């Protein structure tokens, strides 16, 4: 992914993230989130991470944000009159964010990250599966239990009358 294309995608990503946190209507925030996630998936593809990029679209943009939109539609949330905290908190948050970005940029300016040549079949399913089923086998199995617990928890919590 050439530098110019990266700058364009990065600018769009930051713009989408700003829509998420700044727009008053939750539906537009959710759509901004879809945009951010799709653009990050594009960045993943530019970093030769094919399976992770498409998994990002399937899981995040295709399922999680749909869930968000579902809940917003169910609760019929419209635009809010007062959406933001008092300005002191806003300034504090912005200062923290800018500080973090500045620290990272300065640190990287002193020691930039090397870009190695591409390994064969890097980013494909085979490599990821080899990692998942050897080094990370225990977290893999625990993740499946975690998802089961989350499903049961969500179903129970969604009931009209809690037990």
């Amino acid at each position, binding site marked *: 992914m050439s530098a110019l294309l990266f700058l364009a995608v990065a600018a769009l990503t930051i713009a989408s993230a700003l829509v998420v*946190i700044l727009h008053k209507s939750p539906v537009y925030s959710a759509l901004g989130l879809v945009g951010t996630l799709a653009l990050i998936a594009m960045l993943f593809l530019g970093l030769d991470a094919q399976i992770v990029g498409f998994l990002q679209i399937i899981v995040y943009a295709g399922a999680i944000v749909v869930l968000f939109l579902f809940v917003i539609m169910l609760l019929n949330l419209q635009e809010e009159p007062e959406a933001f905290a008092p300005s002191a908190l806003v300034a504090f948050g912005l200062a*923290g964010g800018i500080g973090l970005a500045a620290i990272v*940029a300065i640190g990287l300016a002193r020691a*930039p990250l090397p870009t190695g040549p591409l390994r064969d079949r890097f980013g494909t399913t085979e490599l990821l599966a080899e990692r998942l089923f050897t080094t990370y086998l225990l977290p893999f199995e625990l993740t499946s239990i975690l998802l089961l617990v989350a499903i049961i928890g969500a179903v129970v919590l*969604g009931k009209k009358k809690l037990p």
Partner: protein
Amino acid sequence: MTDPAPLSWYLVLSAVLFGLGATGVLVRRNLIVVFMAIEIMLNAVNLTFVTFARSQQNADGHAIVFFVMAVAAAEAAVGLAIILQVFRARATVNADEVTMLRW
């Protein structure tokens, strides 16, 4: 595949996104938008992991991103169910109005 852009830029972008997400969590009052800002933070971290994976030619970064996605999905499901319950109890999802344990 052609060479990617300088990888340091990706890290700066993910720091900026993380900062934006954190600002969103602090600043917004709607619980669902706070959740979305948390998702942005998680994605910024994913971007960092994938960048390092590309730099080190190591698929471990991809595996970690896989787990982060699974955990984020589980968290979103349970969190939204909780928000639904809060709405049923208080008829609002504004964080400023959900401050008392009773009433």
